[in-house]
């Protein structure tokens, strides 16, 4: 029997065309670079909405010290900035931070310092942290609302409630 001799073929190396793949990859990369827009980090400011009507009964012990309550107001009208007032619950005369077209940032800085001072005093006295309600007028820009809430948070207030100016029912005088 005659043995067939296997014909030897030269070994061919597989040739993968890299160039078109690279072209396509560059196009993809160009697309993603052009459409790339880094997303700014979004965060939250936590707030507690004020009660709609009467305040709920407090379960705190009568021996426990009640936290102080402060009310700040701001209400620009027709683009004219108004003063910021800060009133402690039980006091009659509010602190006023004069705000004119030129010194808005100065008034905001003074307001921020006053809030920081309140928190510092409370921490020194080791009392409960005070609550703050900020009442805004109809025309206050939301950016300004956030700025005031931001300042209050940075100063150290934890319980902050936003409200519409004039919506808080007036307190009835105590019966003699």
């Amino acid at each position, binding site marked *: 029997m005659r043995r067939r001799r296997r014909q030897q073929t030269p070994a061919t190396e597989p040739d993968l065309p*890299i*160039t078109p*793949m*690279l072209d396509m*990859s*560059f196009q*993809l*990369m160009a697309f*993603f*670079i052009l*459409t*790339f*827009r*880094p*997303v*700014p*980090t*979004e*965060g*939250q*400011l*936590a*707030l*507690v*909405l*004020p009660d*709609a009507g009467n305040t709920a009964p407090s379960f705190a012990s009568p021996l426990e010290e009640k936290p102080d309550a402060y009310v700040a107001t701001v209400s620009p009208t027709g683009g004219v900035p108004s003063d910021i007032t800060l009133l402690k619950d039980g006091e009659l005369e509010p602190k006023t931070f004069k705000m004119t077209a030129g010194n808005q940032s100065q008034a905001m800085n003074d307001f921020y310092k006053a809030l920081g001072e309140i928190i510092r005093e409370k921490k020194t006295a080791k009392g409960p942290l005070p609550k703050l309600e900020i009442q*805004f*007028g*109809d*025309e*206050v*820009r*939301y*950016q300004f*609302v*956030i*700025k005031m*809430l*931001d300042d209050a*948070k*940075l100063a150290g207030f934890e319980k902050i409630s*936003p*409200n*519409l100016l004039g919506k808080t029912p007036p307190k009835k005088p105590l019966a003699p």
Partner: protein
Amino acid sequence: MSVPANHDKAAEPNLTPMLDMVLQLVMFFMLCANFIAEETNAMVKLPDASAARILDKNTGQTIFINLTYPGKDKFGVDQPKTLTFNAGVRKVACGNSLQLQTELENQYKLDETRAQKKPEDRAEWEAGRARSIVILRADQRHDYKEINEILAACRAAGYRDIQLRAIQLKN
């Protein structure tokens, strides 16, 4: 001087490492691409705040309320003011704050039903917790009057803890 025998072979650059690197770059840009999340709205220009904190991932159900400002979009087309309620799979375009309040009330009932199933959740519910977290994404150009209408709707529905979303400023 003798010349090597393989002098006629064409010099070819090795493209494979280059391709590897380009593919890695493509991968990076694909992963970092700005995919707009369903619950958020890119039309809302958020205000800035330094004290804004990132929401904990382990929080429960969240409700997103988006309030856009009327104006032109990036293609120059006029867009009206929109108010949308988004809680998981439920996404509703609300015409006004009353409609939003209805949606919030429905969600509040759902929260209550969910909390009644387990005794520990029931105790949390009684203590004023175990409710969905309401996140308000409102455009910075709005007046407070419009924001207050939304906050009033949340309060009327039973939600008192509200998170106002803002762009986090680096200190």
